[in-house]
C-alpha cells in the first residue's frame, strides 16, 4: 500500500491544467463525479479537502482515498484579420491523497495532499502571441494536516494548516519586433523558480439539522507564492542587446486566491443523494504579475486585474447495488478574467462542466472510483490590451486577441479504502 502510494505520487507529481484562472477543480474522484460538490457531502476521506469538518461524520474509523486524473486541455486560437491560427494541447495530472483516522468519538485526524492550482500551456515557440507567452508550467502541491471536532450530534468544525510548495516555469519573447532576433530566432526569457513554499489554512464547519440534510461552509485561505531569486535566462539575444538582457535573478509573487464555499446535500431516498455547492473565489488579489529583475532589465508589469468569481455546482449520487454507485454532476464556472485582460497564458472564459463516474466496490473495504469531466467552453472573442512593445518607443498599447475555443476532458481513477 505504502509502495503504491509513493509510486503514484512520483508519477503524478506534475499537476497542471485549466478552469477559472489557474485553479484546477479536481480534488477527488467521487466528488468530481458529482460536479465537484462536497462542502456538505460526507462520502469518503475526500471531505478533508471539501470541508474538514465533515471528517467527523465518516462511518469508518480509517479512510483512505487516492486518485489521479489525466487532464487533456486543448485551446485553439485564430484571428481572421491577420489570418493567424495557433493551438495548444496539454496533458495535466492532478492528483489527491486523503486519509482520516477517528481517534475518539469527537475527534478525527486526517491528512490531505492535493493540487488545487496549476497551469500548463504550451503554444508553438514564436507563435504570434509569443511576446505574451510561449509556454508556462505552474505547479503547486498542498499538504494539509487536518483535525475535525464533533460538537454534539448536529454540528462539527474542522481545519488545518496548509503547507504549499510550488514551482513555475515561464517563457516568452521579449518583443514581437524581430529586431531582437538572432538569425530569425527571437530573443526570449525563461523565468524559472522552484521550491517556493508558503503557508495557509483550510477551515470548515458542518451542520446536520436532520438525518437527511447537511449544510456546509468552508474557507480556504489565500496563499501568496513568493518566488525569490528565481533564474531569469535570456536566450537568442542579439549582440546589440546583450548588455541589457543578461541572465539574472528575479522576484515575483503569484497569489493562489482564497476560496469560500457553502452548500448543502439532501438524502432524497436511501439510494439518492443530491448536493449543491457555491464557490466564491477571491481572484481580485491577482492584480498584476510583476517580475522584478535583479539587474538593469526593466521591471515587467503585466496587468491581470482578475475579478472575484463564482462557481455553481450540482451533483447526484445513486447507490444502484452493493457493488455499484453512480454519480453525475454539472457546474458553471465563471472565469475571473475580464474583457481586455484575456492573456493566452490562461485562455479561459466561462465554462460548463459535465461530470460523471462510478464506484465499483470490490469488497467491504476497497472500492475503485472512476470519474470523468468534460468542460465546455463557448467560442470567445477577446484580447489582451495591456502590452506595449518596449522597442516601439511610443508606449502605444499593442492589443493581442482573436477567437479562442477551448475544451477539456479528464478521465480519472482512484481507490477508496476504509474499515
Amino acid at each position, binding site marked *: 500500500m505504502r509502495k503504491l502510494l509513493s509510486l503514484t505520487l512520483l508519477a503524478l507529481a506534475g499537476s497542471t491544467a485549466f478552469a477559472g484562472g489557474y485553479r484546477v477543480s479536481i480534488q477527488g474522484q467521487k466528488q468530481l463525479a458529482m460536479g465537484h460538490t462536497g462542502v456538505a457531502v460526507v462520502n469518503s476521506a475526500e471531505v478533508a479537502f471539501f470541508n474538514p469538518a465533515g471528517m467527523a461524520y465518516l462511518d469508518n474509523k480509517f479512510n483512505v482515498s487516492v486518485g489521479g486524473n489525466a487532464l487533456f486541455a486543448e485551446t485553439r486560437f485564430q484571428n481572421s484579420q491577420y489570418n493567424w491560427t495557433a493551438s495548444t494541447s496539454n496533458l495535466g495530472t492532478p492528483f489527491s491523497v486523503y486519509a482520516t483516522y477517528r481517534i475518539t468519538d469527537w475527534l478525527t485526524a486526517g491528512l490531505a495532499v492535493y493540487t488545487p492550482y496549476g497551469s500548463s500551456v504550451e503554444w508553438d515557440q514564436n507563435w504570434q502571441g509569443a511576446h505574451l507567452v510561449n509556454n508556462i508550467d505552474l505547479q503547486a502541491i498542498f499538504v494539509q494536516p487536518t483535525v475535525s471536532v464533533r460538537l454534539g450530534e448536529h454540528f462539527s468544525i474542522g481545519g488545518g494548516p496548509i503547507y504549499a510548495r510550488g514551482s513555475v516555469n515561464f517563457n516568452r519573447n521579449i*518583443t514581437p*519586433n524581430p529586431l531582437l532576433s538572432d538569425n530569425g530566432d527571437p530573443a526570449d526569457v525563461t523565468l524559472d523558480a522552484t521550491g517556493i513554499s508558503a503557508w495557509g489554512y483550510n477551515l470548515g464547519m458542518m451542520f446536520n439539522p436532520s438525518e437527511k440534510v447537511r449544510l456546509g461552509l468552508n474557507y480556504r485561505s489565500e496563499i501568496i507564492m513568493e518566488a525569490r531569486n528565481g533564474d531569469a535566462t535570456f536566450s537568442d539575444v542579439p549582440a546589440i542587446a546583450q548588455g541589457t538582457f543578461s541572465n539574472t535573478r528575479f522576484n515575483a509573487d503569484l497569489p493562489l486566491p482564497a476560496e469560500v464555499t457553502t452548500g448543502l446535500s439532501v438524502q432524497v431516498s436511501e439510494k439518492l443523494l443530491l448536493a449543491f455547492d457555491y464557490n466564491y473565489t477571491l481572484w481580485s488579489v491577482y492584480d498584476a504579475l510583476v517580475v522584478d529583475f535583479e539587474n538593469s532589465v526593466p521591471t515587467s508589469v503585466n496587468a491581470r486585474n482578475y475579478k472575484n468569481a463564482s462557481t455553481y455546482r450540482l451533483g447526484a449520487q445513486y447507490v444502484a447495488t452493493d457493488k455499484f454507485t453512480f454519480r453525475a454532476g454539472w457546474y458553471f464556472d465563471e472565469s475571473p478574467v475580464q474583457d481586455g485582460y484575456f492573456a493566452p497564458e490562461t485562455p479561459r472564459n466561462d465554462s460548463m462542466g459535465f461530470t460523471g463516474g462510478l464506484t465499483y466496490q470490490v469488497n467491504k473495504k476497497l472500492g475503485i472510483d472512476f470519474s470523468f469531466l468534460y468542460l465546455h467552453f463557448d467560442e470567445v472573442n477577446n484580447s489582451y490590451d495591456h502590452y506595449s512593445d518596449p522597442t516601439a518607443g511610443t508606449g*502605444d498599447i499593442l492589443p493581442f486577441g482573436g477567437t479562442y475555443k477551448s475544451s477539456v476532458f479528464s*478521465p480519472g481513477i482512484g481507490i477508496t479504502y476504509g474499515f
Partner: protein
Amino acid sequence: MKNKYIYIAVLAAFGFASCEPEFENEVNADYTAGEADFTSYVAVGNSLTAGYMDRTVSRVSQQYSFPNLLAQKFALVGGGEFTQPSFADDVNNLGGLMLGGAPIEYGTGENQYPTRLIIDASEGRPENIAGTSTIEVSNVQRTAYNNMGVPGAKSFHLLTPNYGDIGVVAIGLSNPYFARHATSNAATVLGDAMTKNPTFFTNWIGANDVLAYATSGGSGVDQTGNPNPLSYGSNDITDPTYFAGVYSTIINTLTANGAKGVVATVPSVTSIPYFTTVPYNPLSPAALGGQANIDALNAALYGPLDAVFTTFGEPNRVNPLSGTSANPILIWDVDAIDRTAEITGGLMLQGVPAPVAAEIGAAFGKARQATANDLVVLPASGVIGTPNANASATLVALGANINGVSYPMANRWVLTANERAKVAAATTAYNNAIISIASANNLAVADMNAILNQLVSGLRIETGQLYTANYFSGPSNEGAVLFSLDGVHPNARGYAVITNEIIKVINRHYKSNLPLYHPSYFPGINILPTN
C-alpha cells in the same frame, strides 16, 4: 454486469478525448477575391515595387516587396504563383550590383550600386555592410517575372526599348536591374510584364519622375512643357503632360485584356525622412566651437556678407551667427541673385587684391543662409562641417572652406524652397493624372501620397501602433520606424504597412475580403555590433 459498466466508462472516455475544439467559422471562412481575379498578378513600378530598401535590393529585402506580400494574401483566394527576379546569387544578402566582377561607377569613381546600409553600433551610424556584392548583372536571366518593379525606372522607361540592354549597362544607357532579367535586349518592362497575361495588376510608377530631381537637391531641370524625354537628364522633372500620356498608355496596355488593378500615387518629399531628418539649422554655438570662433566667423565672413546683401536690399539673406541659438547652414542657391561682382568690388575697396577678391566673390556670389523652407537632404549630415574639396587654395588658407559654415553647401545638398515648389507642382500634376486615368478605367487608387503624408503628424494603424516619418534614432524606438536607412524607401515593416493600405483599397473597391499583415512582427533596421 460489471464488465458492461466498465466498457461504457471506457467508451465515454475515448469519445470525449477525441473531442477537439472547433470554431463555428474557420479563420479563412470569409476570405474572398470579390470581383477581382488574382490568377495572374503582375506588379509594375520602380524600386518601391522591387522591394528596394537600405539603398539596394537584396535577396531578403526582395521577399518583403509589397507585391510579394500582397501575392501571399492573394494566394488565399485563388491567387496563382508569384515570381520575382532571381537574387539567388546574393548568397550573403549584401545587395549591391557588380558588372563583369567590378563595381559600376559610370566614371564617377564611386560605386553606384554599393551593398546595403546597416547601422554599425560601434560607430553609431549607417554604413554599407562590409563585403563585396555577389550579384553579377551580366548573368542575365532572360525571364519575365510577376514582379516587374525596376529600381530607378521613371514612367516612360516602362515603354522604352533597350532599357534592359545588357550591352550598354556599362556606359549608363540602360538599367542594370532590368538588364538582369529583360527577355531580350530590345524588350520593354511593360512588354515583358504583359507576357504574364495579368488578370490583376498594381502600378506604382512616377516617383522617380520627380524624386530624382528632389533627392539631388534640385540639381536637374524642370522639364515641364518639354515632352521629349530624349533631351532629359537623369535628375530632371518629367513634363507632367508627357507623364499623363505615358501613364495612359501603360494603363491601356495593362487593362487591354480586362485586367483589374490598383494604381498608387506619388508620395510628397515632405513625408520622406531623406528630406526631413537634417534640420536647416544644425549649427549650435557649441558645434561652431564656442563664442570666440563665432566672433571670428562673423568678423571675417558673415558680417561682410551681411553688409553687402543688406546694401543691395536683402537684409536677411545672411545674418551674423548667434552665440545663443542654433544657426542655419550657409548654402549655394542657384536661384539667388548673383552678387559675385558686388562682393568682389566691396573686398577690393577694402584693399583685398583683385584675384583674391574675385575668388571669394565667386564662392559666395549665390550664397545665403538656409531657412525653414529649405530641405536639407539626408546625406548632407555627413558633409556639413567638413572641408570642401573644391574650395580654392586661397579660401583654404583663409579658413573659408568648411561646408555649411564658412563655405556654401553645394546645390545638391539642399532642396530650396523654390525647388520644393517645382517638386510639389509636378507631384500634384502627376497624382491628378494618375487618379483621373484610374477613375476613367474604374481602377482602385491607393493614395500613397495621402497615406504617407499622415505619417508626418503620425499614422495610428489598426494594430494600435503609431508610426511616423522619422528616421531611425536608436534601438528604443526602432519598432516605430517605417523607413529604411536610405531615408527614401520603406523597410520591411514599412512595406507591410503599405501592403495593408493596398489590401484595404482592394477590399473596398473590389468587394474582396483579404486579411492584413501585423507590421509589429516585421523587421525594421538592421543593427550590427560592428561592421
